[in-house]
């Protein structure tokens, strides 16, 4: 087994150097790192990740069935609406597109109704990775093992974000939650589609760069508005970022710099816009009327 220090990294540059030196994809590096961390073999870790994926898929399926509104009455039934729309004769951008968004909605609607989800990396951003991976399963032949590997790619990128910024809406705004999830999903999709580690990092950089500044201002403090629709929309965003990287569009700002920018913006973001419900959407007349009900 390789030395601990030789498998850990502090940023994306080091991560890429490690992957390159062994000619490993990012998922393989993340898996080897985890095996060392947990002091166990790689096989059961892949199986454990596959089990996480099964929970994610079940959350999508359960969320697609939701008709009733959540206890706060802020969400419920929209995943189903999108899914129904995807089956109409000529849905805008085709049915796959509408279903991808529906999956993101589904997980968050299920979450709002005390459903079982996997925090990826948080509950408020738990729809993006399941939506993207289930789309690949249904349309690109990704199997369960492939999905588990893709989740390790996501985790590889997550280490870079966690070590240099954070995943907390209260500390960094929504860019730290949905931005991070989108960054990880874009990289995961890129590698699952045969992209290189460098392309995966580009995809992550594109996804995160284009969420910078996004605030966390949910109505009534509930993880519903804008979170439910945002998970649907940023599943699409992640796919776009992956597409750009796979097309070899170069991200001028490397992933490490984007992560540092995210941390910097999070620090300067006013407290009122960081999960306190003291500003933004949370203090609109609409939000007030909801709380009065």
């Amino acid at each position, binding site marked *: 087994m390789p030395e601990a220090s030789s498998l850990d990294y502090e940023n994306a540059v080091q991560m890429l150097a490690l992957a390159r030196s062994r000619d490993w994809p990012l998922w393989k590096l993340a898996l080897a790192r985890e095996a060392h961390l947990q002091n166990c073999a790689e096989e059961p870790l892949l199986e454990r990740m596959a089990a996480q994926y099964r929970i994610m898929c079940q959350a999508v399926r359960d969320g697609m069935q939701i008709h009733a509104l959540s206890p706060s009455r802020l969400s419920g039934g929209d995943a189903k609406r999108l899914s129904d729309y995807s089956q109409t004769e000529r849905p805008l951008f085709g049915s796959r597109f509408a279903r991808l968004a529906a999956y993101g909605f589904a997980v968050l609607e299920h979450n709002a109704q005390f459903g079982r989800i996997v925090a990826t990396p948080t509950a408020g951003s738990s729809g993006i990775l399941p939506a993207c991976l289930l789309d690949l399963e249904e349309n690109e032949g990704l199997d369960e093992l492939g999905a588990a590997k893709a989740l390790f790619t996501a985790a590889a990128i997550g280490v870079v974000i966690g070590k240099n910024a954070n995943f907390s809406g209260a500390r960094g705004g929504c860019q730290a939650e949905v931005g991070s999830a989108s960054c990880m999903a874009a990289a995961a999709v890129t590698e699952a589609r045969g992209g290189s580690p460098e392309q995966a990092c580009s995809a992550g950089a594109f996804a995160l760069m284009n969420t910078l500044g996004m605030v966390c201002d949910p109505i009534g403090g*509930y993880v519903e508005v804008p979170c439910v629709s945002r998970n649907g929309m940023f599943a699409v965003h992640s796919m776009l970022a992956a597409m750009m990287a796979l097309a070899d569009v170069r991200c001028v700002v490397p992933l490490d710099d984007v992560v540092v920018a995210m941390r910097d913006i999070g620090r300067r973001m006013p407290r009122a816009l960081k999960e306190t419900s003291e500003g933004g959407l949370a203090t609109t007349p609409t939000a007030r009327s909801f709380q009065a009900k």
Partner: protein
Amino acid sequence: MSSFSAFEIIGPPMTGPSSSHTAGAVRIGLATRALLGEEPVEALIELHGSFAATGSGHATDRALVAGLLNWPTDEPRLKDSLAWAERQNLCVTFRSVDLGEDIHPNSARLTVSGHEASCSVTASSPGGGSIEIVEIDGFTARVDGCLFTLAMWHKDRAGFLSKITTLLACAGTNIAAIRTTRKGRDGEALTLVETDDAIPPDCRSLLVRLPEISRLRDIPKLVA
């Protein structure tokens, strides 16, 4: 310090709706239950900051109780935990509290008692389901549940740490972090030892027999 395990980033599996206000709260309850070391019969739960302000919509109250009932983060009965607590003769009281400026806004203090012991735990849930225990029975702590944690309430005596580190060394258990806090010289002290592996039972039974130790509890690995 977090190790950023893949299962911490992709995880935990949890009952919604919030990783910080629900899953983290369950883990705070689990840690408290482990430190008490028995079934709690009474619990005073004091909610601070955001836990007090937006906690009810996120089921923070029910999540903390779920942890006290030893339920995992993805327990489907979570939203009904208060009824289950009543059924299991656990009497719970909630109130708001101001724990000061220095503590994270997502924090709570749990004062619990069982038939034999009682324990007070202050902890925060900064995000993504991670937790930080900041105080145990008035002793400053810093435990995040990423490793196995051994908590020992003991008398402050010369050579105490040497005894426990020797016993752990003989058991082949690697210590990742160790912290002793005391209430004055020769007074009461609390030592927290974080280890990579669970303490083997034979080593544990030797530790319990040390005359300085009045109480020994284990917090299992809660994260990843």
